[in-house]
């Protein structure tokens, strides 16, 4: 090869080759190649796991509300049932089950190494047969059809009903067959009944609830006077008279509303609908107890999307039903949001002040080091321990004292003396404060010394320097800490179960009654909702899709809150960090 190299450029090329040859000769490990690969691999695995998790949650969450077709299955023994196919899997039939099979089916299973397929159907009609779901082995299926006209009916009670509409009664008249009335008229009657039902609901929950609220207020006012002046005092007697007057007025209101509701209820009872399942068994319920019904196998794409979005809307905006496995999660969304907001409001000043003292004022020495290490270690304490502490300290000691001092008239029922929104937020603030402290300390340490000196040279005091120069400059770093704390706090469940989260809290922590924000109330939380629906409900198979949807919602909520905080932080960063030169 070298013999042919006569011109100078070729010689150049040769020497280049020689150089590059020398370079590849260096130790493989010394070039760091394996480490780059290892690092890249670790990153890829990490990202893959996160993406996979998000994809799983998203996929299951997104499809949950999409209407499925209804299959009518004829089993080997002649049994006929209808249901939504949920999922299929391979399983190994037991020896007895095998023995009872036809020889052909047995042979087929034997060739598949003893495995057989089966499908889970959501059959509904729990009130008729006592089961929501049913497994059917593939070899036990004689025929599967998807006939038109089959309805899926979502009801207020007993879960879904699958079957056909038999007859409808309106206004207490005679039952008329569905075919005679027509779908449009049924839908109209259904809409009327639902509207009426909502009106009943508004009166019973809202208006009567308000009357009860005022009555309660009056009763508490009377009790307060009793506690202050004693039952024999003149003050008590006037208060008693006043109470009697107010009670009479409120009683009138109550009677009027109750009568109105009763009238509506009577009206409501006159509208009924009769369904028949695939085997002909009939079931009559109030028309208003039907949340939604659709002919599953006859829907076009537009109609399916209509059902899909109407289910989403119900999920986001309504209260839960049926032990939380149906209906919406609005109170949980709201509770999670408000709690996280309060957490941020509590944790930020607390953490920032602590960090300011540690970094700027405390004399750096052994004691401060110990405090700092302790703070960092706090992050490792199991969160349930914080829950116990929150319950014992905040709810029982602090809350109990508050009750005795300010809400004595309500005792023995606790006001602040049991778990609630405020105590939950404070407990989580305690849990997440190390994050804020560490981030703030780091942000403070990163403020250039020259900036502080510039401020001191202008005759600023230490506090003025911190207030005007150090804190603004450290603000983006502090925000980072707050964002981390927020994400940690919003996803935390265990301690909340002790200090205020409940399975069902019909009253939102914010409403129209003074003082509008009720920090003492217990509340619902998406994280706890996931646990409750997935693992605490009677019907865990029905809860499963809700677990995914709720998880998706919780992740989305945290992502939205984080994103807004990050936008604020980046704005601050542009403002306070600028580029030098």
């Amino acid at each position, binding site marked *: 090869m070298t013999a042919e190299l006569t011109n100078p450029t070729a010689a150049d090329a040769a020497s280049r080759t020689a150089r590059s040859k020398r370079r590849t000769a260096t130790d493989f490990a010394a070039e760091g190649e394996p480490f780059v690969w290892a690092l890249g691999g670790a990153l890829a695995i990490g990202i893959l796991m996160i993406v996979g998790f998000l994809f799983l949650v998203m996929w299951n969450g997104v499809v949950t509300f999409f209407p499925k077709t209804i299959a009518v299955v004829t089993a080997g023994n002649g049994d006929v049932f209808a249901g939504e196919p949920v999922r299929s899997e391979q399983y190994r039939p037991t020896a007895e089950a095998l023995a009872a099979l036809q020889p052909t089916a047995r042979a087929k299973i034997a060739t598949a190494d003893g495995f057989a397929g089966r499908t889970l159907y959501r059959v509904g009609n729990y009130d008729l047969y006592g089961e929501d779901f049913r497994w059917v082995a593939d070899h036990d299926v004689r025929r599967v059809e998807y006939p038109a006209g089959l309805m899926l009916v979502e009801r207020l009670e007993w879960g879904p009903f699958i079957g056909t509409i038999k007859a409808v009664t309106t206004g207490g008249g005679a039952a008329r067959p569905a075919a005679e009335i027509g779908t449009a008229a049924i839908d109209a009657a259904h809409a009327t009944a639902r509207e009426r039902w909502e009106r009943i609901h508004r009166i019973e929950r809202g208006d009567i609830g308000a009357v009860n609220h005022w009555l309660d207020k009056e009763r508490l006012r009377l009790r307060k006077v009793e506690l202050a002046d004693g039952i024999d005092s003149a003050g008590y007697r006037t208060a008693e008279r006043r109470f009697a007057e107010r009670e009479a007025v409120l009683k009138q209101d109550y009677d009027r509303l109750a009568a109105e509701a009763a009238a509506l209820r009577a009206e409501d009872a006159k509208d009924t609908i009769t369904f028949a399942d695939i085997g002909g068994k009939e079931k009559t319920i109030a028309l208003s107890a039907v949340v939604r019904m659709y002919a599953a196998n006859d829907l076009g794409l537009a109609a399916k999307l209509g059902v899909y979005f109407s289910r989403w809307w119900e999920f986001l905006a309504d209260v839960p039903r049926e032990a939380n496995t149906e209906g919406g999660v609005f109170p949980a969304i709201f509770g999670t949001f408000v709690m996280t907001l309060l957490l941020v409001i509590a944790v930020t000043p607390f953490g920032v002040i602590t960090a300011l003292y540690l970094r700027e004022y405390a004399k750096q020495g052994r004691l401060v080091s110990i405090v700092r290490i302790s703070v960092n270690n706090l992050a490792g304490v199991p969160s349930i321990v914080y829950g116990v502490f929150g319950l014992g300290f905040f709810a029982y000691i602090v809350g109990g004292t508050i009750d005795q001092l300010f809400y004595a008239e309500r005792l023995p029922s606790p006001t602040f003396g049991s778990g609630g929104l405020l105590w939950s937020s404070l407990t989580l603030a305690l849990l997440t404060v190390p994050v804020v402290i560490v981030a703030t300390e780091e942000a403070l340490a990163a403020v*250039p010394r*020259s*900036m*502080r*000196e*510039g*401020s*001191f*040279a*202008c*005759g*600023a*005091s230490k506090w*003025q320097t911190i207030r*005007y*120069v150090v804190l*603004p*400059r450290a603000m983006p770093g502090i925000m980072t800490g707050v964002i981390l704390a927020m994400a940690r706090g919003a996803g935390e469940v265990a301690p909340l179960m002790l200090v205020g989260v409940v399975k069902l809290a019909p009253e939102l922590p914010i409403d129209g009654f003074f003082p509008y924000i009720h920090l003492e109330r217990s509340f619902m939380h998406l994280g706890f909702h996931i646990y409750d629906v997935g693992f605490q409900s009677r019907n865990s198979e029905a809860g499963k899709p809700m677990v995914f949807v709720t998880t998706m919602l919780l992740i989305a909520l945290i992502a939205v809150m984080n994103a807004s905080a990050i936008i604020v932080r980046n704005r601050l960063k542009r*403002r*306070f*960090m*600028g*580029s*030098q*030169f």
Partner: protein
Amino acid sequence: MAVAEKIAPGASSTVYHVKKGEQGTVLDIDDFNLWYGTSQALFDVSMTIERGLVTALIGPSGCGKSTLLRSLNRMNDLIDGLSIKGSVLLEGADIYDKRADVIALRKRMGMVFQKPNPFPMSIFENVVYPLRVDGVRDRRRLEETAEQALRGAAFWDEAKDRLQENALGLSGGQQQRLCIARAIAGDPEVLLMDEPCSALDPIATAKIEELIDELRGHYSIAIVTHNMQQAARVSQNTAFMYLGRLIEYGETRAMFTVPKVRQTHDYVTGRFG
């Protein structure tokens, strides 16, 4: 390091030929010693800063120029383990007296640092910072002061249309002039400048030198510089320091043409440093 041996340890052997200011002396440094922990950074420094004149501090790096300058407004107080001996009199009153008010002292002195250090706020807020610190809220007064200070720092024309912009977006030279404006906004008596041009390009440097010349008379200026030509151009008196000692302190022209000490001669002619 042969030169080092010529200094008699412990003894103050400074040679003086200072140009006296017409308005007298503003600062009187007397037998000043300073230790960072156990290592001594200043040895028996005695000198005056003349009112209305520009005093340059020169010397090889690490000789204690910044330390001395920062001792004049007690910036060194921020450093742990610092101890001093001697006194610095500002108009006859010892600034290191136990009863002395450090904040009041710093308000009488403006300081410009080697690296521009604008605050993370608008140009306007940067300039009026000394007034804000004093609790001034009167908008008119703030605006007047800002304009005056920015004009004084030859920065008004560039800054007047962008007063509400963030100061961190300015170029290095602009930032330094902003810092000068900030230093004079509080109407100090003394202006302390620690290598104010070392991070700047020649054009910005020329602007700032011009500025120092204009500010002279109105303020007493002490300026640390590495740049011999700069010291010669802007100052009336020059102090030459070496290894924490004040070697020679005298009128600038003489310092650069006929210095009385060998080391000064060697340094200003560039033979060491």
